[in-house]
């Protein structure tokens, strides 16, 4: 424990601003991964334990495309589109068969694919870790905003995450498709009785969730090393985010991610050896006081 360092930082404005911004950056990155998880749970009532694998594929697709074309935009597109297609196939061929089944059965199917996907990546790209490299456009000096340091690349990340949050939030509540999706989440039987293809909706939502994870992986590829199994720790963190925020709530995922980001950035000052433990402690406290998470609704 190093509470002096924490107190010292809290009393210095420069430190406060920097650590808060880094907390926000961590949080927005987390949100981008977690939002797909929460979306899939909200609509399909499935805890997608293979979400980390989509994140991993997004990163590898992006790296492959970047090496091939040298274009950052195409790399991002490859990461997002590739995982969207993968998500659609995964949902239609496999997950759709276990919707009625036990939670454990769904978990098992996801777990099987985590194992398979990790090995597939190992076969295609090899066991060693890789790095995509930062595009030269972003190899510039960081910006100083209100005494805090922010690299331009992270501004892009925050921008993408915010756009994702707004589009998803507004899209679900205001558009016709959003209304149908919410109706399907609430009462799939009724929606399909109205002549709407629920299979298509489910597949679409899963593809969207997979795409968000893939996009997150693609965006992370320039700053994080790529290895088989890289989705694992990311899955755990985004899992904590969605549980704290409330499974199925997009706002909850945003708030949960930002809270975790702040816990990480200030926890690393005050409790450098127990930062991870703090996250789990926080999760326990939230779950015990409000089992459905901060913004979760009671299950119908």
């Amino acid at each position, binding site marked *: 424990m190093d509470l002096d360092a924490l107190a010292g930082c809290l009393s210095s404005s420069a430190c406060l601003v920097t650590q808060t911004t880094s907390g926000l950056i961590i949080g927005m990155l987390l949100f981008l991964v977690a939002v797909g998880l929460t979306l899939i749970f909200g609509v399909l009532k499935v805890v997608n334990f293979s979400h980390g694998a989509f994140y991993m594929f997004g990163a590898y697709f992006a790296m492959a495309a970047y090496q091939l074309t040298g274009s950052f935009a195409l790399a991002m597109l490859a990461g997002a589109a590739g995982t969207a297609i993968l998500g659609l196939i995964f949902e239609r061929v*496999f997950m759709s068969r*276990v919707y009625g089944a036990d939670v*454990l059965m769904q978990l098992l199917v996801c777990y099987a694919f985590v194992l398979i996907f990790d090995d597939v990546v*190992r076969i295609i790209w090899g066991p060693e870790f890789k790095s995509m490299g930062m595009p030269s456009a972003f190899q510039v000096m960081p910006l100083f905003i209100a005494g805090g340091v922010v690299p331009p690349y992270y501004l892009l990340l925050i921008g993408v995450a915010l756009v994702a949050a707004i589009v998803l939030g507004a899209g679900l509540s205001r558009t016709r498709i959003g209304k149908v999706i919410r109706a399907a989440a609430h009462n799939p039987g009724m929606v399909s009785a109205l002549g709407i293809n629920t299979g298509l909706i489910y597949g679409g939502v899963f593809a969207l969730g997979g795409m968000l994870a893939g996009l997150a992986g693609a965006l992370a590829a320039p700053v994080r090393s790529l290895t088989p199994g890289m989705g694992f720790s990311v899955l755990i963190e985004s899992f904590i985010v969605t549980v704290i925020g409330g499974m199925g709530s997009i706002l909850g995922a945003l708030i949960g991610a930002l809270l975790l980001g702040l816990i990480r950035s200030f926890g690393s000052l005050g409790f450098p050896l127990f930062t991870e*433990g703090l996250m789990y402690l926080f999760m326990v406290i939230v779950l015990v006081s409000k089992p459905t998470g901060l913004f979760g609704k009671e299950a119908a």
Partner: protein
Amino acid sequence: MTELEAGRARALVPVSSGAALQRYRDVLIAVIAFAVLASLPLFTGSKALLDFVIRCSAYGLFATSLNLLVGYTGLTSFGHGMFFGLGAYGFGLIMQKLGVPIPVAFVATLAITAVIAAIIGAICVRLKEIYFAFVTLAFQMLIHSTILSWASFTGGDQGLRGGIPRPTFLGINLANHIHLYVASCALLILGLLAMRQIAQSPFGYTLRMIRDNAARASFLGIDVWRAKLTVFVLAALFAAMGGMVMALFVSGAYPEFAYWTISGEAIFINMLGGVSTFLGPMVGTVLLLLLNDTVTRFTEYHGIVLGVVILFFALGLRKGLLDFVAEWFARRRKTGEGR
């Protein structure tokens, strides 16, 4: 004890007729099974086979105890591995630091596990379904983090090193491979027998009722929270027993024993073997360990092989092996009678 009495009243119908008979049958099966296992070293010189049975004992106790929660009570715990880890660490630490006789360490570990399980359980069992799963998982991660952070006591990521001392007691020397083997078998059989008795007791039927309809059970005067807490602590005890067998096998305890992948493996074993029969998890244990040991011999891409096998069970059979076999027999008997 009102909930037990109420449970007994409700459970009288299925239990009373031949309950004593069934108990004798169970004990008889247990004795035969132990005799067969214990005499195995007389027929084979394969140390790997004995190792395999020891590991089956550790995982079997652990997985079957999880089934008390999942299969009998409908409590899906994602954090059951924490008690496996607690058992291994508790036993290893007591033996290393205090040097007491093994049975004392064994009982003391169970006592510590019971206290911790009671505290964690009291918080967790209020929650339902997936939220119970999440909070148990969170506790498991908290315990795992603590083991890693508290390096001066637990050895951190390197685990308990230097071997676990195994002084001879009552003529039993657990440093001897055969002795350890027989002791593991004894623990396994005794543990399974005890769990079987719990499952078939009036309390066991109370649990089934809670699983099927908690509202009805509570309406009938059963204290659901207390019953759930009781089975949570009982299951933790047997999981800790499994952890102790594992600690003896590897002569150490490692943080991986308390990681959530261990809980995941137990869930996997349960799904593989089947959750609606008592011996399902045991069948699953043998199946998974055999699969693991065989596949890793031939390829380092065992993930793909294991994944495909899981898919076969999850999408093909849609249930555990023993459940599938049991249903198949039931159906065959039915058609046979019809003929």
